């Protein structure tokens, strides 16, 4: 009869050893790189970051343990079974202990991740913004972000899409001739914020979908045309960092970037004054 393998039991055992070794080395090296933090989250400058980073860390420990355990079990079982000539051994207890194991271990972890994760998520997106927040209006368009501050009067002018004229720097379609609130609006290509003070962003797009991602603030949110999406955060340290677009928006997507500058309270007030005077 045709034998479905060209290998003798001895060579088959050797192939099993090679496979087991490869799986074990891949699992341990991969886990080691994760543990070494050679490539890891950037420094955190936000009040949200600690909870998110802790959630990442807890998930990493859980999934990392399962990853190494499952890969080593696969390696060990293949090592044990390849080239084996003695009678087969059924798994002790049949499938139900494994069903229980998976349900209990994964289920408990799922419950814990949901419980903690929901709290973190709620703090980001469901918690009301504090009354003293600095309100900044953000508009995304192919392929730039623009940030608008209300100016000394504390009121935003009403945007009119049909009046958008980028050639004349009217990025938001403001109508200062007829709208007094629009006259002192400050428009910046950078997001400048004060440290330790809540920031409320109201995000909208003028053309297609975009996304605002500030890794150091652990903040990411899509712009959806037709919607005004509020999101808030608080920076905890002085920094200058990048804002990038993460929603595919067209040929210039890769270059749609801006900077976030976190200033001291006084420097921020000075910056606002300077901008208002221009």
């Amino acid at each position, binding site marked *: 009869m*045709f034998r*479905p*393998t*060209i290998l003798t039991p001895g060579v*088959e055992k050797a*192939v099993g050893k090679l*496979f087991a070794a*490869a*799986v074990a080395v891949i699992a341990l090296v991969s886990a080691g*790189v*994760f543990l070494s933090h050679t*490539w*890891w*989250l*950037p420094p955190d400058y936000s009040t949200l970051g600690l909870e998110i980073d802790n*959630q*990442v860390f807890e*998930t990493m420990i859980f*999934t990392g343990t*399962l*990853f190494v355990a*499952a890969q080593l*079990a*696969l390696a060990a*079982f*293949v090592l*044990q079974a390849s080239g084996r000539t003695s009678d*087969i051994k059924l798994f002790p207890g049949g*499938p*139900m202990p*494994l069903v229980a194991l*998976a349900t209990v271990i*994964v289920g408990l972890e799922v419950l814990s*991740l*949901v419980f903690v*994760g*929901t709290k*973190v998520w709620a703090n*980001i*997106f*469901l918690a009301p913004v504090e009354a003293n927040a600095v309100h900044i209006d953000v508009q995304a368009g*192919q392929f730039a972000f623009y940030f608008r501050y209300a100016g000394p009067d504390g009121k935003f002018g009403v945007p009119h*899409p049909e009046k*958008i004229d*980028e050639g004349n720097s009217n990025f938001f379609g403001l109508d200062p001739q007829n709208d007094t609130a629009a006259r002192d609006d400050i428009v910046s290509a950078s997001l400048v914020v004060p440290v330790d003070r809540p920031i409320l962003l109201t995000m909208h797009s003028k*053309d*297609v*979908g975009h*996304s605002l991602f500030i890794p150091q603030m*652990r903040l*990411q949110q*899509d712009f959806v*045309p*037709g919607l005004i999406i509020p999101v808030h955060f608080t920076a905890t340290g002085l920094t200058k960092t990048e804002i990038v677009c*993460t929603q*595919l928006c*067209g*040929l210039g*997507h*890769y270059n749609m970037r801006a900077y976030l500058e976190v200033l001291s309270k006084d420097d921020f007030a000075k910056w606002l004054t300077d901008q208002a005077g221009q």
Partner: protein
Amino acid sequence: MVTVSALLSEHPPAESHHHAPEGWIRKYVFSLDHKVIGKQYLGLGLVAVLTGMVLSWIMRYHLAFPDKPVPLIGLIAPTFAAGGVITPEFYLQLMTMHGTIMVFFVLTTAPFAGFGNFVLPLQIGAEDMAFPRFNMMSFWVTFVAFVVLVAAFFVPDGPPLSGWTAYAPLSAVGKGAGPGEGLGQSLWVVSIGIFCIGQLLGSLNFIATTLDLRTKGMTLARLPYSTWAWFITAMIGLIAFSVLLPACVLLLLDRVAGTSFFIPAGLVVSDAMQPHSGGSPLLWQHLFWFFGHPEVYIAIVPGFGIVSTILPAVCRKPHLGPRVLIACLLAIAGLSYMVWGHHMFLSGMSPTSATLFSVPTLIITIPAAIITLLWLGTIYGSKLRLTTAALFCLGFVSVFVTGGLSGFFLSQPSIDTYLHGTYFVVGHFHFVMGVAAMFGIFAGTYFWFPKMFGRMMNETLGKWHFALTFLGVYATFMPMHWLGLEGNVRRYSSFPADYMHGSLALHRFITFAALFLGAAQLIFLVNLLWSRLRGPAAPENPWEATTLEWSTTSPPPFDNFGGVHPVVSHGPNEYGVASPHGDYIMQIDPPTAAPAAA
């Protein structure tokens, strides 16, 4: 061993519903034979995967060496890449076509329509699919869809750049949104719409065939696990594609008929006010992902079935917990419709919904974990024969574990807040959906090739193919998780000097690994070709397996069982038991054979 030839000598042949086709066209082109159609789907998948892979090489080369022209591409595509220079828009066009070709024309066609068409009727003892003409139509409709998609390379401005998800309004407002968003995007929408029709025809056919054409004794409890998987996949596909099809129609209407299903008022694109109002970009996202997430399972569930069919045969041991396995597959299918919103945590939909979508996404890991443990429990204490098909099954378990576990991060909205839109997502879905499904395809190819072509594949080449592929896969896709943790953003054609330039070394490593991985596939191609022409003749049952396809000749006759309707007396899981022909009982063996040990 009971074979068809033995049965024929004892029983008069049953009257066949079909007559063998005459003429080359009816036999090999517009064939009604499920076996030919299965091979046609696999052939289409092979052409598609080679196309998609070459596109990915160009992208990877450009990411690693953004300042250097890509060799040869300037000659092949002078319009888009003059002098081999990859422009940002061409990069996105390559990316869009890579994703679309791989997801639709490889991961959907090969594991489900390809292997399912060839094997399912054989495994249930049927002569053909329930609706052979629909079956033929489903392939040719799919073929037309592929031609329409590839045609986008040959129109002015080229293919679309909006990604395989074609998010509106980028995909809806027309050519003002960017190169390829004119005719190229329209061709994309039409292609996917046509593709849906093909898949709906196929899904209906699979369901009707499984329910109606099972031979005598082939109860649902005796169905082979691969047939269960294709049956469940067909049920997933029937609902998923019936949502994507109207979504594509609406998108096309927005593009050409002035409707506004997905385009809101007040948009200014390329300095032009858009004449639309009242639409919702989120509606497209909901419709797309209502299809898109089940699509992940359309790609991977057939792989589950293939692995669960091959593992007992190579382990010489019954599959652990077969009823639990089927229950888990059904649970995954049901849950797959409750999780689409995890692709949209940051889309602007209600933050409360995110929690609702997160919970079933995490819960779906429980049946997936159970299935993985069942595979490990099956391997434990077995008499493992390390054929190439076995190695790809073991590799499937490894990469599925890896990809599945990284999903834990992305299923939590609070972590997705950081990782969404980064290379972490790319690494995750390539492992769990792309590579795992491809390993299922490779396992299926090495396992069923003898039945398809009557020749054995070369096992030495097969093992080299597996070894290099396995190493290449981890070297290519594992580092993408590290890039993602750093915040490296996906879908960027290059990283400007002051942004993410520190990741360039890792990107270069990934590129070399991807080229290595691609080169390893040449071994597979050589093996396919050589074995098809020169491989040793295959016996009826080279793997000593139990299911019905191994009870007929290799390759099977036109009506599959030579005019005999096989009678099934056993389940597919009877390995490790003494019988007249070895340590297994075939499904076709008479009931007097020794009872199963497990």
